[in-house]
């Protein structure tokens, strides 16, 4: 089955129905392995075991930005390529991305209290991630405010593309400004600054979070397609009742 067949919602639903249990199982396994590796990883020499909140904080931050990137590609799919399922993908990804951003902010805040002495500080990285969270909520609000899903899709697509400018700002904020948040240590020019004993569990947790996103996103897309079918059926029913 060529991949273009997935543009057909029924084929897509069939594929998701077959894939979902496997993805969910893979997610659980990856989380089990990742959390086990995180538990076994050595303590930080300064922060002790508290530093291990990083294994949840960093992957959720990566996914928070990655979700907006997925939404951006879906927005291009809606506006440029007119892909039938692009707006379903965008609508399904928004709440998931907002949740990851919230987890990132909360875990970071809980980590900051013992380490920096404060739950919050207005430095560049934290502020730009908070702005990302507000933009997620704005996109969700726009989706819910416009009744017709296809019109809402195009408006949300424009807003997503405008908001995509925040992603490089978040990534490079720790380089451009003098911030309290630590600078880039994993994805940067030259080798990563982290020892493999810490980097490996982090990457395993990142894979686990990615599988979690895939599972949730595909399930949410299926729900959205169902929701639209229900809406269409209700409208047809109302039409028939009005016509008779």
């Amino acid at each position, binding site marked *: 089955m060529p991949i273009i067949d997935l543009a057909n919602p029924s084929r897509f639903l069939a594929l998701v129905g077959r894939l979902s249990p496997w993805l969910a199982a893979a997610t659980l396994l990856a989380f089990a392995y990742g959390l086990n590796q995180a538990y076994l990883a050595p303590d930080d020499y300064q922060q002790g075991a508290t530093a291990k909140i990083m294994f949840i904080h960093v992957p959720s931050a990566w996914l928070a930005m990655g979700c907006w990137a997925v939404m951006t590609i879906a927005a291009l799919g809606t506006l440029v390529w007119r892909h039938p399922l692009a707006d379903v993908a965008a609508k399904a990804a928004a709440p998931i991305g907002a949740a990851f951003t919230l987890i990132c902010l909360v875990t970071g805040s809980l980590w900051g209290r013992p380490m920096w002495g404060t739950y919050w500080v207005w430095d560049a990285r934290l502020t730009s991630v908070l702005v990302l969270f*507000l933009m997620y909520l704005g996109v969700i*609000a*726009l989706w819910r*405010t*416009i009744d017709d899903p296809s019109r809402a899709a195009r*408006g949300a697509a*424009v807003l997503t593309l*405008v*908001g995509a400018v925040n992603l490089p700002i978040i990534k490079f904020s720790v380089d451009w400004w003098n911030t309290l948040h630590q600078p880039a240590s994993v994805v940067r020019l030259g080798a990563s600054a982290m020892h493999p004993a810490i980097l490996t569990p982090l990457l395993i947790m990142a894979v686990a979070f990615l599988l979690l996103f895939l599972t949730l996103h595909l399930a949410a897309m299926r729900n959205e397609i169902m929701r639209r079918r229900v809406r269409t059926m209700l409208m047809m029913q109302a039409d028939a009742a009005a016509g008779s």
Partner: protein
Amino acid sequence: MTALSALLLRDMRLAVRVGGGALIGVLFFLIVVTLMPFAIGPDLALLARVGPAILWLGALLASLLALDRLIAADHEDGSLDLILMARVPLELTVAVKAVAHWLTTGLPLVIAVPLLGLLLNLDPKATGAVALTLLIGTPALTFIGLIGAALSVALRRGGLLLAVLVLPLTIPVLIFGVAASNAAIVGPVALGTPLTILSAFTLASIVLGPFAAAAALRHGME
């Protein structure tokens, strides 16, 4: 070009008429700046210290509230449909509307700054700095707001949604506007650095705002 200049003059004329709301924005600015010392307290030294921030916040909120007049008013009386069907590129049209909006809403805010600076105990140098940064920054607020206005044009109660969409995008303008004002007054940072970045935001928004707004209008008005 005749069509665009006609649109510019029309928008400006409508704005200064009774229902236009050109001076309502200044009035709101005045009210917000008057409210702040009631909340902060009458300590003049403190007011002088936070004065640039108060003025910037007031200008931001006043710009925000005037935005629903930008495109929604045309949508209500049907002229938006004519604008969409015109031969002039939609990007240019919305850019001209934003220019007219800034001339009648943003520029009066800048002109009102010296008077309001007196209320906040700002010395002439500080007032001049805030006025300059607002002169450079208010077009950015208008053109970024243009995007939100275009997205929420057809909504009945789109006012709060407009604010929710626009405010996160205007946060960098606010940050660098206040930073530039403070740099001119007290800061160790040279004025040029935040002022240049603020100007960059304004220029970028003048270019990108009309394209995003035109895309939103085209796709949202079906």
